[in-house]
Structure formats: structure tokens, C-alpha cells
């Protein structure tokens, strides 16, 4: 026990020594603006975090090459939360206390963003989240901003589109994770308003390999259309299962299935699936000649040149997060502090990004509306604007 | 009145009747032996009496209380201890600690009480002292600090007896205590058995070493194929026709004599 204690002492003291020496080493003069980023680079959300990091790297390089902001460069300090809420929270504290960041971009996931919230609030450091959970901005915090379209925006849009096409008897199948549960809440809340009746309401768990039981139940309810509110490979399984059960009803979805992996996974079953999300999938949707079109095509071209693949919607969320912060930094007069940055973010007015044109206010930290949504239909293995 | 009364005890495994309506009595401060050829059901009989196995029929009464259906640990706490044919020692503990664990029987020691104990409680010290005494009684006090796994074979058997004694039994069932022991070790064992008996503990011994059985046992029960074929003092058993046949049958076997 004595030796154990000595080792314990070493284990406890070791980090202490390390940390007290960690915050030296900043340059003299034109010190860069330090921005933190908490991303899920590993774990189950790695598919989100990696393109997000790529987009941020790309944009930071572009801004710095162009001379930075107010003559100062931007430096992003990354932390990987490994898709773990506790790690996201510790990472936020580290970025705030040890790195002294002005703001934090992140996290990739909704739960991870919520986990960082109280520490950011207490320290007075703004968070710009790339997660789509409605809770991030519905449960309002003056320090938390959000770039993607939350379900609060997407769901009513998709429901109205379904109603407009005369598909009023709708069956819902959603996952039991954060995205699906959040979406289901909004479907239940907005169905009536959109003129849609929910005739079936089924769920499944992440990792499930077959949804034909749920779809059999849905088929028996005889809906006009099936709304899939899920992300990940399970959504593709649903599309396949539906086709194999000879279900003729059209399938609808949202941002969760706006990924090439859904089309690859569902293959032919993806044909004819409709989804509502932002315009990045088909930049022409912005309208050629508009500023938004120029911004989007420029980003897509640069991203493709750098990484050899088209950016997905997550890259778009990250583009907007770093872009909004850069824009706000540029507008600050006087001392650049976290609080000034937060105020400047709140004054964002008509900033054109990938997810849409952002206008934040003291009561709206999402800044987007249903107008940013378009309906796509998958045809020939790619997205096409639905007429 | 007898200390232990076994009546009609029966245990079947499938079609085999391992113990077949066995009855006998053990009196206080006496030594009884149970003998019989291999597979006669001696160990099963012990398991039934001590609660390690469940009887299909019959009763066991110890000191006026029925034992059948009780859990093995409850039977030990009632005052009936045992040893095993293949010793079941706590190999990673010292000989002293092996005995000390058994000496804990009857001392209060719930989690809460133990958790907030900041000095050696008197029960703790008594336990250690008693364990040391029992090692002396069985003649293995020289090994007190040796790990059980490092003990010589004969000492292991004596240690198990010391451990059983530590539960303060009134009756002990010893399953082949002399198996694998050399002459000197057997002598130590026999001395220990007498000392134990003289302390007021009755003994039932399953044993193959006939020399030992004939020397120490006051009475002998003979089992063959699960059933009791004879019971009586050593001199009578030696001349019992059924017993001789049972043993000769085993020794000559199929190959003839």
C-alpha cells in the first residue's frame, strides 16, 4: 500500500507539472486569434467530425493567406471528444482555461454540445455548434449559437411538402437516438398544423440490422407516404426493406439522409426518395448569379481540389461556423474579447454561408428559416431538385 | 441420546442409488469410522449429511434439530464441521489465515460494523489467538506463516482439520484424512484425532487406512454399493462375513484372485 501511494502521488502530480507550464509560448506582437474546436474525430460520429475538420482547416488557411482578420491570423486548436459527452466537456474547459480561446466551434453532436454549455456560460465563451438538435437553440442560452437547420425548421418544411403533394396519411419511422427522438417530437407537434395525419409511429435502435418488422406494421396501416427520420446506415436499411416488402409509398426524409452513403447503401431503393435539407447538394438551387451560389461553388471547388471529394452537409456546417466567427471578429471595434465576439455574433445580419443566409439576434441563435430548405429527389444515384 | 441420528438416507443419480436407506447414530465425544470399497457411497453420504448434496429420502437429526434442507454453511454453524477428500484450502493464504477465517464463525462482523472499525476489535484478536492454538493442537504450528499452496501434503490434511475445528464444532466428518500420508504423518494425525476427541468433539472418519481405522474407531459402519452392510466395534467388523465378501469382491475383481 505504501508503494501504491507513492505511485498514486506521482500519477496525480504528473499532470499538474505539465499543465502549469502549458500556457506559455505565445508570440509577441500580432498574436493570432485563438479559436477552439471540439469535434468527434473518433467514435461513432467520426463521419461528422472529420469533414468538419477538413472544412475548418481549409477556411482558416484561406483567411490567413488573405492576411487574416484585422491583420491577425486565426489559429484553431482542435480537441477530439471521441463522441463522448464527458470528454467534450473536459475539452471545453481545457480550451477555455489553458488555451484561452475566444470561442469554441462544436461539438459535432447535440448531446456533446449540451454537455459543454454550462462551462462555456460560466466562463463567458461563445459556442458555435455544428449539431442539428433543436434543443441547442430552443433551450436558449445567450452563449450558444448553431449553424445547421434544426428539426424545428426541417420537419415543418418536409411535412408541408408531403401535404402539398397530397400525401396526408403519413407513417413515421425514427431512430431512438438524439436525432430521431428530436425529429419525432417535432413531427408529433407539427403534423396537424401541416395538415398531415400520423397513421403509424415506429422506432428502431442504432445498430439494428433489419427494420422489416416495423415496416410490415407500417404497411398494414396503409399510409400515403413514409417519413424516415434517422441518420446513419439504418436509414438505408429502411429504404431497402421497404422496397423488398413491395411498398409503393414514396419515402421522405431530412438532413439525416442527405449523404452519399445513404445513396450507396440503399442503391436502387434510394431512387425516388425525397428529402428536405439545405441547398448545398445542388448549388444551382441557390440561383445562379446570386452571392450564395458564388460562395457555395467556390467552397465546393476548393474543397474538392484539396480533398478530392465533394463536401457534405457537415463540411458545410463547419464552413459556416468558422465563417460566422471570422465575420464577427472583423466587425468588432475595440478590444477583442469573448464577450465582444458574442455580441458581434448576435449582430450577424445577412451573412451568406453554405447552410443559408444567417441573421442572428439576441433571441435567435440559429438565424435560419424554412426558406433555406429545398426538396430533393434522388434519381440516377444523385440528388435532383424536386419540381 | 445420540448427537447425530441418520435415518433412511437415500440419494439416487439417475438409475444408480448412491446411498441406499442408510441409518446410524453418532454419540458425543466418540470416534466412528465409515468404510467401504471405492464407490460405496461414503463421500456422497458425507455430502448429504453436511448439506452439500440433497437427499431424496430420509432424515438427519443433529442435536435434536433436522438438518435436511439446510444450507452447508448453516449446518457448520450448527456445530457440524467437515473436511474434503480433495482438500479445499484457501491456497493463497497462510495456514494461520486459513484457520482464522473459520474462527470468524459466530463473531459479529457485518459490513457496516467492519467498515467503521478503526482499531483491532477484541473479536479480531481472539480469532487470531484461537487460530494459533488450533495449529498447535493439530501439531502444525511450525507452518503458521506458510502459504497453503506450499504446504506438504500431510500438513494440508491437518490444516483442513484445524480449519474445521476452528468453527467450534461438536461433531466433525473427516473424509479420508490419512490419504497420501506417510507413517510419521499418520502418527501425528492419530494423536491429533485423540486430542480432538478429548476436547469433546465427536468424529466420523471415512478412511481406507485400515490400521488407522482399527486403532481409533470405537465403532465402524460398512457401506457397500450405497447400503449399510454392517455396523459394530472393530473386532466384530473384522470377522463379519458380508464385509469380507465386499472387500474380497473388490480386491479380486473381474481378473480373479
Amino acid at each position, binding site marked *: 500500500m505504501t508503494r501504491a501511494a507513492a505511485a498514486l502521488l506521482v500519477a496525480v502530480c504528473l499532470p499538474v507539472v505539465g499543465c502549469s507550464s502549458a500556457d506559455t509560448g505565445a508570440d509577441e506582437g500580432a498574436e493570432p486569434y485563438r479559436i477552439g474546436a471540439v469535434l468527434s474525430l473518433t467514435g461513432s460520429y467520426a463521419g461528422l467530425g472529420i469533414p468538419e475538420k477538413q472544412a475548418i482547416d481549409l477556411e482558416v488557411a484561406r483567411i490567413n493567406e488573405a492576411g487574416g482578420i484585422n491583420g491577425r491570423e486565426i489559429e484553431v486548436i482542435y480537441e477530439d471528444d471521441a463522441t463522448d459527452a464527458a470528454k467534450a466537456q473536459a475539452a471545453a474547459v481545457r480550451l477555455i482555461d489553458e488555451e484561452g480561446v475566444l470561442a469554441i466551434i462544436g461539438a459535432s453532436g447535440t448531446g456533446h454540445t449540451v454537455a459543454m454549455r454550462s462551462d462555456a456560460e460560466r466562463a463567458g465563451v461563445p459556442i458555435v455548434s455544428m449539431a442539428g438538435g433543436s434543443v441547442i437553440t430552443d433551450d436558449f442560452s445567450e452563449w450558444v449559437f448553431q449553424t445547421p437547420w434544426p428539426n424545428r425548421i426541417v420537419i415543418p418544411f418536409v411535412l408541408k411538402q408531403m401535404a402539398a403533394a397530397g400525401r396526408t396519411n403519413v407513417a413515421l419511422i425514427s431512430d431512438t437516438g438524439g436525432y430521431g427522438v428530436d425529429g419525432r417530437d417535432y413531427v408529433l407537434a407539427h403534423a396537424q398544423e401541416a395538415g398531415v395525419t400520423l397513421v403509424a409511429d415506429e422506432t428502431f435502435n442504432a445498430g439494428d440490422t433489419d427494420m422489416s418488422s416495423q415496416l410490415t406494421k407500417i404497411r398494414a396501416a396503409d399510409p400515403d407516404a413514409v417519413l424516415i427520420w434517422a441518420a446513419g*446506415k439504418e436509414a438505408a436499411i429502411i429504404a431497402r426493406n421497404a422496397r423488398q416488402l413491395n411498398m409503393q409509398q414514396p419515402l421522405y426524409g431530412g438532413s439525416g439522409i442527405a449523404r452519399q452513403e445513404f445513396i450507396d447503401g440503399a442503391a436502387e431503393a434510394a431512387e425516388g426518395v425525397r428529402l428536405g435539407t439545405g441547398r448545398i447538394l445542388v448549388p444551382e438551387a441557390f440561383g445562379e448569379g446570386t452571392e450564395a451560389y458564388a460562395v457555395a461553388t467556390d467552397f465546393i471547388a476548393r474543397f474538392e481540389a484539396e480533398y478530392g471529394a465533394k463536401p457534405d452537409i457537415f463540411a458545410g456546417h463547419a464552413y459556416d461556423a468558422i465563417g460566422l466567427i471570422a465575420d464577427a471578429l472583423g466587425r468588432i471595434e475595440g478590444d477583442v474579447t469573448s464577450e465582444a465576439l458574442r455580441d458581434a455574433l448576435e449582430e450577424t445580419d445577412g451573412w451568406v454561408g453554405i447552410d443559408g443566409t444567417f441573421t442572428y439576434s439576441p433571441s435567435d441563435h440559429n438565424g435560419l428559416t424554412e426558406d433555406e430548405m429545398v426538396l430533393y429527389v434522388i434519381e440516377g444515384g444523385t440528388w435532383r431538385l424536386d419540381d | 441420546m445420540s448427537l447425530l441420528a441418520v435415518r433412511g438416507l437415500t440419494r439416487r443419480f439417475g438409475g444408480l442409488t448412491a446411498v441406499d436407506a442408510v441409518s446410524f447414530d453418532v454419540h458425543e465425544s466418540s470416534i466412528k469410522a465409515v468404510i467401504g470399497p471405492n464407490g460405496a457411497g461414503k463421500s456422497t453420504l458425507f455430502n448429504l449429511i453436511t448439506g452439500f448434496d440433497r437427499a431424496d429420502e430420509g432424515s438427519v437429526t443433529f442435536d435434536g434439530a433436522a438438518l435436511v434442507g439446510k444450507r452447508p454453511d448453516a449446518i457448520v454453524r450448527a456445530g457440524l464441521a467437515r473436511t474434503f477428500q480433495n482438500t479445499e484450502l484457501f491456497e493463497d493464504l497462510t495456514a494461520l489465515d486459513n484457520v482464522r477465517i473459520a474462527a470468524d464463525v459466530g463473531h459479529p462482523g457485518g459490513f457496516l460494523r467492519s467498515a467503521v472499525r478503526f482499531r483491532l476489535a477484541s473479536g479480531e484478536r481472539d480469532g487470531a489467538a484461537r487460530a494459533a492454538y488450533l495449529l498447535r493442537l493439530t501439531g502444525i504450528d511450525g507452518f503458521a506463516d506458510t502459504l497453503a499452496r506450499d504446504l506438504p501434503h500431510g500438513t494440508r490434511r491437518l490444516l483442513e482439520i484445524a480449519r474445521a475445528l476452528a468453527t467450534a464444532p461438536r461433531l466433525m466428518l473427516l473424509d479420508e484424512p490419512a490419504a497420501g500420508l506417510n507413517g510419521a504423518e499418520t502418527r501425528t494425525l492419530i494423536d491429533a484425532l485423540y486430542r480432538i476427541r478429548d476436547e469433546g468433539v465427536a468424529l466420523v472418519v471415512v478412511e481406507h487406512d485400515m490400521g488407522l481405522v482399527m486403532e481409533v474407531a470405537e465403532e465402524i459402519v460398512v457401506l457397500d454399493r450405497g447400503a449399510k452392510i454392517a455396523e459394530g466395534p472393530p473386532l466384530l467388523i473384522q470377522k463379519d462375513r458380508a464385509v469380507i465378501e465386499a472387500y474380497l469382491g473388490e480386491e479380486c475383481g473381474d481378473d480373479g484372485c
Partner: protein
Amino acid sequence: MDAAEFFQYVIAGLKSGSIYALVALGFTMVYGATGIINFAQGEFFMLGGVLAVWFHGLGLPLPVAGIAAVAATALIGIAFERVALRRQRSASPLVLVIITIGGSMVMKSLARHLFGPDELSLPEFTPGPSVDVAGVAVERQALWVWGLTIVAVLLLAWLYRRTKLGRAMRACSISHDAARLMGIDTARVAMVSFGIAAALGALAGFAVTPLTQTSWDAGAAIGVKGFAAAILGGLGNPVATVIGGLVLGLLESLSVAFVSSTYKDVISLVVLLVVLFVRPQGLFGTAQRGKV
């Protein structure tokens, strides 16, 4: 509910169930030979899928890619047994379980490094609309899954009953010590069992990837299901294990039909726990002496 709808649920249950059965068989094989619960079994399932995608991407025809993936995973299983477990035979099974947990973490993480974080797809073996059997839609790929499951089970039965190696495996599963005393090379049995278990897992992963896609993290969930199926049926008994897998699949499917899709996993777990408490040896297993 008409008969066609009911049987649609049954078909769905049998489809998931045969996947569970294949994974569960892997658990049973390794347990029988070594007394270890191999928590890396789910990763073999994952490897079967991602390796098949990789081989297919290299230009190999689908069947060849599948065979290559199963063979490669079997080799990985054998290598894992030899490198990480062989020398530790004397340690308690629970300690060995920890090695398999560590192994599963490494396999999973390496798969992410090598094959990326996103979902991977494989074409169906025989693309086309589902087969209609009296109003019940049966997927073509499901027919493949069943076909491969049956072939695997028959091969295994042949191996167990007709070969010397199989008899050695059975001897080991009854009593490890006795088998060694009989002169059986228990180390070889353990190694081969790991290979077969890995191959079974990989086969399942390969067969369902066209239906479900796969990814580096696909192993954990199916591993738990497979373990549950093996326990439900009776760990160590191959036939019971297969039945356990099918029962688990049916339980889930019928829970969706009659209760709620949200609680389908809870329902099957509660059934599992009740079975365990009432019949610790599983539904169809024979009573076993406790082995810690």
C-alpha cells in the same frame, strides 16, 4: 392481422435470427473449446463485411471477395488466439475475457484507420425484387442468408460428427482436462475453434452487408445479440445456439408486431433474464457444472 402479415413478421424474425445464430455459433465454438467468452466475436462479423467490401473494391468478383474475406478473418482469428491468448491458457477465463475485450478494441480501431469512418456498401448477391410466397415478401438476399446459414451449420455438424478434429472439439467442450488426458491437442483445438468462429462471424457479416451496409463500428451491437442468443439457447451446444438465435430474432420481430418497437430489445432481454433465472443452462442446453 391476417396470416400473410403474421408470416411477414416471422420472415423478418428469422432473417435477423439466422444472423444472430451465426454470430452465436462463434461464441459457442470458442466457449466449448476454451471456456472463454470471446468479446471480439462481433468484430469478426464487422471484419467479414468491411474486408469483403475492400476485396470487392480491388476488383475481385463478389463470391471471390466473400471467400477471401471469410478466409482472411479466419486467419485473423487464428492469429489472435496464437498471439494474445495461447500463452495465457492457465489464467482464469475471466482474465482471458479481458484480453478479448482489448482485442476487440484494437480490431475495431484498426478497421477505422484502414477503411475509414463511413458506411461501406456491397451489391446484393442476386439483385432483383423480392420473391412472393403466398403474399409474403421474401428478400432474395434473405434466401442467401438462410442458405449460407444452413450450409454453415451442416458443415459444422459434419465436422463435429465425422472428423477426428470435430470429436476432439466435442471432447474439449465436455471436459477440457479430460480431453487433455485423452491425448487431445487442446491448444490446436482452441486455435481451430477460433478460426472457425471468426469464419462464421465473417460469413454473417459478408452475407448481410448487401442488406445493411457495414462500418468499423458494426460489431458491438451484433456481438451483444449473438452472446444473448448463445446464452438463451444454451452456451456450448451448437444446435441449441442456432435455435437461440432464431428465437431471439422472432422475439424481437413479434415484439414489434404486438407491443412496441421502442421496447423490443427490452422485451427480449427480459425474456432472456427470466430464462436465465429459471433455467441457467439456457432453453435447450443440458445442465452444466458451474465453470467460472
